[in-house]
């Protein structure tokens, strides 16, 4: 992975320098250091003295110009010092034109530094943004040390091509790479706060702490959902979330889940569509979802049904199921299919009126899959509700 650098400068690097027309003045300045003494001598200004311009631009010989040297350092994240760099590069050609002109151009066709020249000299044989991870720090300081950058500068940092890989957001993508390159490549553009935009879960990778802290790093928007989420992820996230809990919790905190999966929420924030109250009978009868995961039958379903008069209240033959004249004698299938719906209005005593070995009509309620021996072993007390002490 490579992390980009010199982002704001890059846009300018490939363009001829603006403002001062060097070529027009080529006959006047045989040496660059005449005006830019600071590139050769430590402590001198990088910029010419404006007074020297008035030698010619006095309003008589040439029209006057108004120019003042910049008072603040250029916004940059380059690890570069002209004097020091010239000293280190003394074995190579250290003339200004090596970096500030394209190959074959005259000396005074001055441009901002040509990145390709940097790469060539430093032996980097790739495009700038595709340079190896170890190369970034050759020219760039970590973002946390690029004090002159503004949030706007950070926001414009270009992403290297590796970031567009389909699995880059996955643990096997940036996660695997970052363990080796956090302190070198990643740090060029990113700081700790950037990672925490997504790694908000309870246990973020410890490696993130290796990065420096810099609030400007959040200017890069990186909150896109992983590619696996897609447009309708909310509808189908259940099984994935059950299997991949660890993955979920690297970005999500519990409160995210509780926004919808809130116990007894009278209106979850978005789980049910608008107007669901009106159409919940069909969904509840056939258990489109597991209602009781979030809604307690007693506290939610039954209390509301009771308030609207929809509870059996001990009267078995209340006449509610009036679309089937003999519903009481033929309710078995409906009950076994929708038992959760039944118990939102009926109490256990309603059923025990007939379905009890201790009294009533002694109809056997046990059906397919009933394992009496196992249930007796697990909870004998439940058996005694109907069978008393004489559990078979």
């Amino acid at each position, binding site marked *: 992975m490579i992390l980009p650098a010199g982002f704001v400068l890059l846009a300018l690097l490939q363009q001829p320098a603006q403002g001062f027309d060097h070529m027009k003045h080529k006959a006047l300045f045989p040496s660059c250091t005449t005006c830019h003494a600071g590139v050769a001598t430590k402590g001198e200004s990088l910029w010419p003295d404006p007074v020297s311009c008035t030698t010619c631009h006095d309003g008589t010989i040439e029209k006057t110009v108004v120019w003042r040297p910049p008072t603040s350092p250029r916004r940059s994240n380059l690890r570069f010092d002209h004097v020091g760099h010239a000293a280190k590069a003394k074995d190579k050609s250290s003339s200004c034109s090596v970096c500030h002109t394209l190959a074959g151009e005259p000396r005074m066709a001055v441009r901002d530094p040509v990145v390709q020249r940097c790469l060539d000299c430093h032996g980097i044989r790739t495009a700038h943004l595709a340079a190896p991870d170890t190369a970034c720090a050759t020219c760039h300081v970590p973002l946390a040390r690029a004090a002159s950058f503004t949030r706007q500068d950070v926001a414009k940092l270009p992403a290297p091509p590796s970031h567009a890989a389909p*699995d880059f957001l*996955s643990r096997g993508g940036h996660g695997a790479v970052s363990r080796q390159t956090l302190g070198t490549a990643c740090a060029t553009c990113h700081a700790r*706060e950037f990672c925490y935009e997504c790694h908000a879960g309870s*246990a973020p*990778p410890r490696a993130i702490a290796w990065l420096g802290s810099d609030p400007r790093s959040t200017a890069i928007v990186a909150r896109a959902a992983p*590619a696996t*989420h*897609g*447009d309708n992820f909310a509808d189908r996230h259940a*099984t*994935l979330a059950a*299997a*991949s*809990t660890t*993955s979920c919790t690297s970005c999500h905190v*519990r409160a995210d*889940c*509780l926004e919808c*999966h809130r*116990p*007894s929420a009278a209106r979850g924030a978005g789980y049910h569509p*608008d*107007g669901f*109250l*009106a*159409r919940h009978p*069909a969904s509840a*009868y*056939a*258990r489109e979802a597991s209602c009781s995961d979030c*809604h*307690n039958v*007693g506290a*939610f379903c039954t*209390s509301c049904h009771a308030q609207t*008069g929809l509870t059996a209240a001990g009267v078995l*033959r*209340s*006449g*509610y199921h009036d679309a*089937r*004249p*003999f*519903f009481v004698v*033929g309710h078995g299938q409906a*009950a*076994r299919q929708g*038992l959760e*719906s039944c118990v939102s209005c009926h*109490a*256990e005593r309603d*059923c025990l009126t007939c379905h009890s070995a201790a009294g009533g009509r002694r109809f056997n*309620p046990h*059906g*397919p899959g009933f394992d009496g021996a196992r*249930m007796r072993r697990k*909870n004998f*007390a*439940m058996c005694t*509700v109907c069978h008393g002490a004489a559990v078979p």
Partner: protein
Amino acid sequence: MKHVCALLVLCASPLAAQGYRLRLDGRFQAVGYRGVQLDSIAVTDTVAGPSGGPTTPDGFAVRCPSGVPYCLFFRPGAVQRGAPFVTTADASLWGFGVRGLSAHVTARTALDLTGSNAWPGTDPALQLLTAYAEYSVERLTARAGRQLNSNRLGMIGFDGASITVRDGRRGLDVSLYGGWGLARGVALPVTSPALNPIADFQPGTRQLLLGAEAGWSGRLGDVRAEYLREVDPASDYFVSERVGFAGVARPAAGWSVSAGADYDLAAGWWGSAEATLGYTARAVSGAFGVRRYRPHFDLWTIWGAFSPVPYTAVQGQVSIRALPQVQLRARGERYRFSDADVSTPLVSVEQSGWRGELGMTASPAPSWTFDAGYTREFGPGAASVGTSASLSYAPAGPFAITVHGAALDRPLELRFSESVLHLYGVDTQYEVNPGFRLELGAVRYAEDRRRPDPGAIDWGQWRVSVRAVLAIGSGDDLDRLPPAVRRMPGGRAQR
């Protein structure tokens, strides 16, 4: 609520380096609806109605069970009016001098300002959803207090402790948790009177709960296994004992195969299960799979002995971004219940059903979103056919408005109820500042019961709601960040 705020203030003041997040979400509603009231009349007092069937003298169709001297019918009940004011407070505290140590509280107050009981969940008025201290580092997370674990066995609430140990490099994690359990789907112990509104069987003691989870997460997939047992300490009998398995395979970019199942060790049967093939790309995503659902009942009830039967469903869904501004969606499911092993020639009940939905979301212009959907379902007990649409205007500024409407036809299978419902509503939102949002909404339910007799009780009603969401906290990173970040324990820069 006062107690929670007081606790937060008391805890916060002496700790100079403490950071906090607090989110208050308050919602007030005014609702009014009319229920039904069971009534009876002597057989001898009924008269013949227009269709020849028995009615009361004032026209209510009645049902006269054989063998008894009276007939039953439902009159309109009293109008129920409620004014629920529900506030949820979600707070995180950190900065106790130990990196990774934090405290979390989520509490809810629910008051019905009319003093009636028309709104569910208002008893007790204060409910503590979660309240735990957490110590979390990369390889370990430990919690103590009231917690909610959401996994494939459901939402497991308990007062106790949990510990998770993980090896991120190998993708392994193991969790163990235990304590005194809460009832399913609510933040109350199973002994709470609020869970027994019609006074039937109820345990006298809270269940003891012990659970364990283990998972492996790799580049090509994840697997997870869970175990949970709940025991009644008074009798040492099981309340439930279940295991669950889930896995995801990602064989190629964009493709996933997920599956899971749970087995009820106490009842000796498989519970719910599913297997899904999913595909996600930039313009298309979809899933196709099968699932099975069987309800789970704790053994302190007798319902498990009534042998609830599962259904098995085939389902599919697809979402297509036909244009950059238009997303189309469709989903469908067909299901069939297993044989209930019971029948009578007198009553037949649907054994299978289906449900489907077609919809689209379009953003024809910046700030404008139009959504429309058509749903249809048919199955045991009930059916429905409905259309819905909404139009939202949400410019970059602080204001947003949505108008929505729906029509629904919802016949029941086991009861005469051929109702048609129309729904109209408006929701507005005003973001005073990034930490404070106000919402105002109103919705009208207009129902036509389609019964020829006075039993056509109108359920129509207005609901008006006002909501305020306040998020405050230490630090300056609350603005326009995703919820997960705003709630992140410890804050970003503090970690």
